[in-house]
């Protein structure tokens, strides 16, 4: 969707590298590179190329780059800069909508995320900085909290904004995070 990977992008990069005098041993698109077992399996047929390589360029997100480095033991570099978890607004336009903060508040913010869409990531309502509904930090950015207010008002749920949020604990949401759903 963002055209940062896929066969076309891989082929393009391969051609470019070749043009610049690099020896490209292989150029493959994995199903996904954040699934350890699946990636291990899909790397098997590429074993020789991986072993002979000096460097692997990954077009995956930051997560995929790390998986590859771990599984191959090779030097892996990212070709992309992982920007954000976002939404495609229209062709070629994307906006950040979730910072995977680990303590979701969407249930009381009219499904508009203040953690990622308010410049200060405020959890308790707006600062005094919005001008005509736009953010003090970026005049082209709508103030997330004014949007939340408008939506809550529409839904007749302003009582949610009236509540004082307890100060957020970062004990369980600090990094690095882990999830084990197996119970052991």
């Amino acid at each position, binding site marked *: 969707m963002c055209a940062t990977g896929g066969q076309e992008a891989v082929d393009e990069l391969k051609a470019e590298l070749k043009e610049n005098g690099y020896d490209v041993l292989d150029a493959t698109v994995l199903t996904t590179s954040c699934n350890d077992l699946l990636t291990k399996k899909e790397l098997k047929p590429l074993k020789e190329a991986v072993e002979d390589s000096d460097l692997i360029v990954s077009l995956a997100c930051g997560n995929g780059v790390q998986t590859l480095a771990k599984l191959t033991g090779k030097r892996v570099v990212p070709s992309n800069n992982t920007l954000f978890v976002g939404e495609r607004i229209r062709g070629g336009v994307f906006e950040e909508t979730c910072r995977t903060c680990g303590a979701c508040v969407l249930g009381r913010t009219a499904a508009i995320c203040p953690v990622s869409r308010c*410049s*200060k990531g405020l959890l*308790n309502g*707006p600062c005094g*900085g919005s001008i005509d509904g736009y953010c003090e930090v*970026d005049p082209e950015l709508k103030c997330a909290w004014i949007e939340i207010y408008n939506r809550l008002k529409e839904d007749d749920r302003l009582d949610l904004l009236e509540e004082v949020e307890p*100060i957020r604990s970062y004990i369980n949401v600090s990094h690095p995070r882990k999830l084990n759903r197996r119970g052991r």
Partner: protein
Amino acid sequence: MPSRLQQTLDEGSFAVSAEIAPPKGFDFSHPLEVAKRLWGHVDALNVTDFQSASVKASSLALCIDLIQNGIQPVLQMTGRDRNRIAIQGELLSAAHFGIQNILALTGDHPKTGDNPQAKPVFELDAIGILQTAETLIEGKDLGGNELLGQSPEFFLGAVVSPVFDPIEVQLIQMRKKIRCGARFFQTQGIFSLDVARRFKEQTEGYNTKILYGIIPLRSPGMARFMNRKIPGIEVPNDLIETLEKSENKEQDGIKIAAELISKLKEEKLCDGVHIMAIGAEGNVEKILKEAGLWT
């Protein structure tokens, strides 16, 4: 003993505070001089916290200087640059020096300041800072640990913008701040009695004290700039025209500010005023004299 600001407000007298800023450097002689001249005529000197998100000496440092000179400050505390450990530590340090008045602010974003590369913190917003101060007053820290010795005594304040669209948002935030311990409010600079009258009505019955922000205008350009750039500022056109025609703009700006203060007091539209002279602190004295408050 309660701070002078608290005493004045509690007894229902008209309170005056004036804003001063720590320097970009470490020579405090200018703000200290200004404060010494004003103290006795104002109830508190309000010291900004890295104003405009810019690097300066800290609010706490100048507050300590003031209090050691017998001058009571308001310590401004924003959430921009400190997490909860630093905020609690600074509040306790303030208490150690006998600083009682605390103004809780969310803070401007670093991007709007002179070190835009800085990592923004904002772990606590203004409301969170009030909650934190209240927790300390109760003798505990946010981690639930008991404080040693006496609990600090703070007189907590916050800010509000009377000119804001939609105003309901500001009122909701204000009510939350009151519930979290804000006993006084400083407003964004106001420039008309109508705004004051309207806001008084809107906040009828709120259990807190309101100090209207007063910014003396020095030129029509300054007024237009603030109208365009500063959230919550609305200088009426007739004031800008008056300044345009004026032969002595700075003097007339002082007069306009003094008149507004006198009328606010006369009509009992607020509990006091907070004067922000922004770089021309010498004018605070002139405004107070002109308003008959240099007592």
